[in-house]
């Protein structure tokens, strides 16, 4: 079976930020996606392993970058060599954890550029070329993921979105010429992610572990040469999710200790310190297709004294506890064919906000029209959302699915 879609998307900028490559828009593109799943019915030895082959590719005519690109989103084979084991090999999207657009133990790559310019949520996730082994038993289940090829987050480089360049100490656009050095491809640079999980009654509990690299260039190799790199990282974490008695709704909690392996003492000001991240969430549904979700997220910098002692003028000021609140409101109208959604990030410590209003109208089984906006507010130029203040945009997408 072959499915897919054709889509046109456009995202004019409110403020006409002139730092970036194009002044008037963030996004102007036509996309054509095809996906195919094949589940062979023979030979017999293979059928008994429940085989599945999946392929999904995007042809993108990107008028912002003035380029035509073909990207394989997913291409994997999946078999069960034993009744208790699945192996998924190839390019795949990997997601786990309990956050809603916030990630602690999910260290798999993201594309925040897509997220901020108005592409579909699907494109927040960047595929990984990986082996994934899943084990099931009555006692617990486990996933083990090996990622031999490092894939970082799609970084904001200034071409499409202006941002705060800590090497230049100001908001920059395309003149930013940072050099991002990725870890080399070697067997011992393979990233490993593991998850052990089971249910206790209605509650899902998981333990997480990750060893690899920061997905963002959190280390400065050479400030004069504007050379950044992806430092080594280990994460140890846990999560829980389940219903709230009496009140109804779903609550979740997640915690992760991010061990910055190349700066464990926190003395090196050029490399991100270790942190502990905390997340608590609650979501509830109400009559007439209304849903509300709130999250509280905190990021505690460890060795904060070392950070303060070693900071130099020009370094980005940081709080020991960075806090973030999110609010999601979703309401469906017209027999669930029109969805109004409003997502907000607000940080009381960074004094910045990101609003994501969106309307999605499913006019038929095939046509979908989406209109939304990305709005950024902030007191300072260097905070996560504040740095994007000049990139406010309104986007529209029209998609035909088949």
């Amino acid at each position, binding site marked *: *079976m072959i*499915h*897919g*879609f054709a889509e046109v998307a456009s995202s004019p900028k409110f403020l006409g930020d002139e730092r970036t490559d194009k002044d008037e828009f963030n996004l102007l593109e036509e996309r054509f996606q095809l996906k195919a*799943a094949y*589940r062979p019915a023979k030979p017999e030895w293979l059928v008994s392993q*429940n*085989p*599945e082959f999946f392929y999904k590719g995007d042809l993108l005519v990107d008028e912002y970058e003035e380029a035509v690109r073909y990207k394989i989103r997913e291409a994997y084979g*999946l078999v*069960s060599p034993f009744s208790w084991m*699945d192996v998924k090999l190839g390019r*795949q*999207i*990997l*997601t*786990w954890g309990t956050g809603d657009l916030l990630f602690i133990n999910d260290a798999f790559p993201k594309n925040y550029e897509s997220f901020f310019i108005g592409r579909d*949520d*699907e494109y*927040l*996730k960047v595929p990984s070329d990986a082996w994934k082994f*899943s084990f*099931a038993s*009555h006692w617990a*289940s486990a996933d083990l993921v090996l990622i031999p090829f490092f894939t970082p987050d799609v970084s904001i480089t200034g071409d499409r979105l202006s941002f705060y360049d800590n090497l230049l100490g100001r908001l920059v656009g395309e003149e930013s010429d940072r050099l991002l050095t990725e870890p080399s491809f070697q067997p011992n640079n393979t990233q490993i992610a593991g998850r052990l*999980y089971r249910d206790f009654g*209605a509650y*899902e509990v998981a333990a997480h572990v990750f060893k690899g690299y920061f997905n963002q260039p959190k280390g400065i190799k050479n400030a004069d040469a504007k050379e950044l790199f992806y430092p080594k990282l280990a994460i140890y974490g846990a999560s829980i*999710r*389940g*219903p709230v008695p009496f009140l*109804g*709704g*779903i609550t*979740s909690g997640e915690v992760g200790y991010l061990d910055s392996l190349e700066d464990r003492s926190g003395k090196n000001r050029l490399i991100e310190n270790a942190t502990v991240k905390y997340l608590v969430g609650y*979501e*509830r*549904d*109400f*009559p007439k*297709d209304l*849903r509300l979700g709130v999250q509280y997220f905190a990021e505690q910098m460890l060795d904060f004294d070392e950070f303060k002692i070693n900071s130099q003028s020009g370094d980005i000021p940081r709080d020991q506890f960075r806090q973030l609140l999110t609010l999601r409101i979703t309401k469906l109208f017209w*027999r*669930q*064919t029109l969805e109004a959604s409003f997502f907000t990030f607000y940080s009381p410590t960074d004094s910045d906000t990101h609003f994501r209003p969106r309307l999605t109208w*499913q006019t*038929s*089984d*095939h046509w*979908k029209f989406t209109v939304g906006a990305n709005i950024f507010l902030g007191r300072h130029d260097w905070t996560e959302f504040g740095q994007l203040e000049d990139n406010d945009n309104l986007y529209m997408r029209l998609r035909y*699915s*088949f």
Partner: protein
Amino acid sequence: MKRFWLGLILFLCFASSEIVRSVYAQESPDGKSVMNEMLTAYYYSRQDAKSEVFMRIVNRQGQTRERRLILLRLDETDGGKQSYYIYFHEPPDVQGMSFLVLKHPGRDDDRWLYLPSIDLVKRIATSDKRTSFAGSDFTYEDVSGRDLDEDDHELLDEESLGERSTFVVKSTPKRFGEVEFSSRKFWIDKATHLPLKVEHYDLKGMLYKVYETSAIQTFQDTPTITKAVMKDLGSGHETEITIKTISYDVGITSDLFQERLLRRPPTKWIR
């Protein structure tokens, strides 16, 4: 001779009272037991089932939307715990999504949705069971059954509906205003215990929604509703559900109903 007559009289007394009692029981069951039989026949038929379901949603303008899905069901006990797995084949924008429901009578269901494009297993809050199922005129409760004890059931009458004789039962929610109807009136087939017609009355007592069974077929000795329509009288909106194929007792096991099943749809079952 005296003892014979006494014995005969005693026998007749007992026998007749037995006969009277059984006739009475057959003629006038109470509403709750009729409803319970319906719930068991409709939602808990056999031990497990695999079905291919087709839904056609039609609005007043005649525009249609379609859903095709595979439904796996496993019962722990009749009227008790149940597990559902749903895999969407159509329409294209939800193709590949899967849905897991663990139903526990007496408390909220556990529900998960898997979005394959971002590999996300989402836990769904389920406080409101009266939301539409997949944009259709059926609610979650219509699809998976409403707890017997949520309503008071009163046997109103017996009527013939076409060729079938039915019990007419009125079900009134115990807590008025908690759901959008003030009462529902069921026509329940005496032979199969399946619902043939359900009228929904709103909080003002006005008829606003009608369910009607249009086909019953027997598979593996089990009478099964294979076509039914839910009509919203106010909006002119309607949804037709067709069971394209169904097989019972196919050997679905409880270890299927886990997160693994969402992330890795079982080839054997979703074809």
